[in-house]
């Protein structure tokens, strides 16, 4: 570096405040995550048990799969509010097809339904230039409506098809296949985002769409791809959860959208696009799960859990706004 010192001096770096807030943003969520983890280990003897941790992973598998894909959407400058509805429709579809055709067909159908809705979202947002927030909100009504029609508002059960349960509930090394699929998705998403040209284009699209276009990025194609990923992931998550319990309900994804967005944003991915990372999303989701688990283990009033989550979300967005302040 010493050779470039003279040039470096002319590069007049920005104030160190920005760098400090960058550092907070970067390490960000890891610190509260570790603190919570340690605190729970000390406070509750059952927390550190393998079974509890494996349960957390199993329960979070759907959420983290959807959040990993949703991270692409957010970084590319979009938002997908239809993931909960897609999840519900995919769960019902997968279970229906699994019981009427075969388990593998059920899995394919669940994911395909999600992918199709995701593509439709992408086209609505790019081709028809409808704001992503509104477009996917509208889509979520359409999709949950379809799911309610398909299931006639009933609980769909397939208790007579235990083979479908193997998809999500097979134990490998003591951990469910659902958790393994989540791990695989997270690793693949991390590589896709940080190592590939696609990942670069996603950051560029969300960071400055006009500059990305002039820089040779097919901005609309990238946006469609992120929504397709998000839809397919919601489809997979719905399939996994319907497989686990062999039942599904059109409304089962009601809270998923907000749980997922909370995990992504608490992780530190900006809702303004152009920034974020997969590792942060995973840790963010796990952090939210730890808080919930902690309330359970310590027998705290679950009403306070919601208040706590809300405050955490506000803090996360506040930190993001603060780190952008200097611009």
């Amino acid at each position, binding site marked *: 570096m010493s050779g470039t010192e003279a040039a470096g001096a002319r590069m007049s770096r920005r104030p*160190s405040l920005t760098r400090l807030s960058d550092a907070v943003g970067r390490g960000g969520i890891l610190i509260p995550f570790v603190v919570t983890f340690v605190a729970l280990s000390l406070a509750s003897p059952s927390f550190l048990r393998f079974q509890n941790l494996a349960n957390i992973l199993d329960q979070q598998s759907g959420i983290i799969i959807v959040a990993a894909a949703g991270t692409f959407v957010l970084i590319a400058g979009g938002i997908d509010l239809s993931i909960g509805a897609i999840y519900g429709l995919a769960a019902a579809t997968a279970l229906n097809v699994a019981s009427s055709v075969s388990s593998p067909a059920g899995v394919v159908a669940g994911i395909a339904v999600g992918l199709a809705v995701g593509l439709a979202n992408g086209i609505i947002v790019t081709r028809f230039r409808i704001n992503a927030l509104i477009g996917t909100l509208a889509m979520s009504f359409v999709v949950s409506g379809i799911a309610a029609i398909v299931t006639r508002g009933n609980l769909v059960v397939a208790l007579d098809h235990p083979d479908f349960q193997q998809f999500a509930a097979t134990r490998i090394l003591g951990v469910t296949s659902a958790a393994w699929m989540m791990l695989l998705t997270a690793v693949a998403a991390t590589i896709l985002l940080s190592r590939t040209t696609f990942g670069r284009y996603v950051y560029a699209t969300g960071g400055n769409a006009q500059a990305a276009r002039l820089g*040779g990025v097919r901005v609309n194609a990238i946006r469609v791809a992120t929504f397709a990923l998000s839809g397919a992931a919601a489809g997979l998550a719905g399939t996994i959860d319907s497989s686990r319990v062999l039942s599904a309900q059109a409304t089962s994804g009601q809270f998923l959208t907000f749980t997922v967005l909370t995990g992504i944003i608490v992780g530190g991915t900006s809702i303004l696009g152009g920034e974020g990372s997969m590792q942060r999303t995973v840790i963010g989701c796990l952090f939210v799960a730890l808080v919930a688990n902690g309330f359970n283990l310590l027998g705290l009033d679950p009403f306070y859990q919601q208040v706590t989550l809300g405050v955490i979300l506000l803090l996360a967005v506040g930190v993001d706004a603060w780190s952008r302040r200097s611009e």
Partner: protein
Amino acid sequence: MATATSDQVHLDVRGIGKSFGATRALDDVSIPIRSGSVHAFVGENGAGKSTLGKIIAGVFPQDQGKLYLRSTPVVFGSPREALQRGIALVAQEVALVPLLRVAENVFLGAEPRRSGFIERDRLAERFQRLTTEAGFDLDGNAITGRLPLAQQQQVEVLRALARDADLIVLDEPSASLSGHEVERLHEIVRRLRADGRTVVLVSHFLQEVLALADTVTVLRDGKVVRTDPTSEETEASLIAAMLGRPASRTYPDKHLPAEDSPAALTIRDLTAPGVRHVSLTVRAGEIVGLAGLIGAGRSELARAIYGAAPAIAGEIHAGPTPLAGSPVDSIRAGVALIPESRKDDGLFLRRPIRENVSLTSLAGLHRLGFVRRRAERIQVAGVLVRVTGSSLLEAPAGALSGGNQQKLLFARALLATPSVLIADEPTRGVDVGAKRDLYELLVDLATGGVAILLISNEMEELLGLAHRVVVMRLGRVVAELGGPAMTEAAILAAAFGTDGTAAA
């Protein structure tokens, strides 16, 4: 020039120091600013001139030193406090509410009101009085965001006057204006001075400073080099003081391309939004300047060539390859664009320098979709050393100064090894030293066989760099000037569509 100014000091800047982190932005700066004078601050980017302007207007607090307003020590905690003492800042970027009407913006936060309701009649009446006094021709009912930038600046000035400011800091007021707009701005400055107000002018444009200011302070690396009456300075003396060394020739030698060098960019009868029936050829190794007033269609032409805006009719070829009308195709055909606005159209300020530079070249830097990160680092570092003399790769682009950000766009274009480079205002907002570097890069590229289409509002830049100048007006090419015919007067005459006498 100094007839209207008194010897009374309006604002005495004494021993001001300011640091941003480890960067010493201002160091022991002392400047007496006389009442009723136009006082200019000049210096390279990063010399501290804007920072000083902002401290005077209460935007930043100083770390050391004091401000004396008519001999009384003052401390400003905010721009609002400075405004209460009659000091207003008209910033580089206009800070108006775009959807409000002009008059509402002027009186924003100080509306005449009765029991909470704005009194529209009184507001209109006050606005009328104010514009008449200032001699502005502004419609108070116009939606501010729809006005041209020059008029939005006038709204800012009015806003300062509406609060009885008698010291107005203009921070790079003409950076985004051109031609006649700049002329109107200069009239405004002269009028403010004639009214007995004090104007602090922070500017890159030395001719502007020499034409308007009574006194000029040269800053370098946060320190005052000297404060002198403008009449004792010349452009050369100011540049020498800013650089700390005598000014070398600003423009590198021109290397004419070989007579038989092939056409690298051919445009036939192109019609696109803002562009009408343009035909143009740029040969390999040639620098063709594109002159014209703002709105003449130059940037529109650049965008149409690059495929950023759809062509309606006509043909564009890069060498033998027809351009299909999208940036992706143009990049593939060897066309690179340095866009007009680096912040809006060019950079990803929060992403690392490396990613900013490699973006357009990723097509050649991956294996099965995976970025070849080592190759990327090596290639980006190589081109950065050539362009900026630094191989800093991982800092966010937004951490760099304006000049270095502009260099990143050059680095990006260079890395794509284009055969045609369209450079739209490539030295905008860049200081003298960095400008010289960019000129050398452009000439180097041309010498290496790249065909360059150079758009610039700076006449000197076009004359100093281009082998040929094409002048546009109202979307059409109205003149093509080369050799001895390429003069400032001829270009202006063509740009304004008048005789040379009327335009000069």
